[in-house]
């Protein structure tokens, strides 16, 4: 599964994207797996209410299921316009 990071999430984790092997059922499960890996993930995912997630480029919730998803992206609230 491709996992993408943007803005300060990208800066804290230190990379813009990576391929992750995971059996996580939901986005929240994937976040827990990542947090368990290394401190920099923990630093990025401390406060989920400050984060947004997109599955295959569509906004989703943290309890959304990952089955069939190829691309997961984590980022802060958007500031377009």
């Amino acid at each position, binding site marked *: 599964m491709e996992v*993408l990071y*943007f*803005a*300060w999430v*990208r800066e804290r984790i230190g990379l813009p994207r990576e391929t992750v092997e995971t059996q996580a059922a939901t986005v929240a499960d994937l976040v827990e797996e990542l947090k368990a890996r290394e401190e920099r993930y923990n630093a990025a995912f401390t406060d989920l209410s400050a984060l947004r997630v*997109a599955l295959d*480029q*569509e*906004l989703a919730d943290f309890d959304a299921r990952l089955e069939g998803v190829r691309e997961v*992206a984590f*980022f*802060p*609230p*958007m*500031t*377009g*316009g």
Partner: protein
Amino acid sequence: MEVRVQVEPFDFGVEAAAFAEGHTKMGAVVTFTGIVRDVADGLDRMEIEHYPGMTEKALEAQAHAAVGRFKLGDVLVIHRHGTMRPGEMIMMVATAAPHRTDAFQGAEFLMDYLKSRAPFWKKEYTADGAEWVAAKDEDEDALSRW
């Protein structure tokens, strides 16, 4: 309907005039332009990051939603990413409609969605350092009216 995501500056006058021309069925054209504002402590530049692929999809979905919801004859969205200095234009939207209320509401609807639902992130660079622009509660709240 046209959506463009680009690094290059755009020529607002040329785009606005081209959009407005030839719409003999449309009595009303509204444009909105967002400009990099100088901040209190002196902004050197703004850098805008985006999510290639999702950005275009989100903007097109928002433009379609606006056309479906208001009586719009045409919509244009241009949004830049990359580095911009104070005074430079970040983005523009334009709407054409038979009546002014639809043109205004279509443009406001697009802007409200673009602010909080299009995957762009702004970082401001001043003499004191760099800081990500925080999303504003009022921008999130603005969505509730639609």
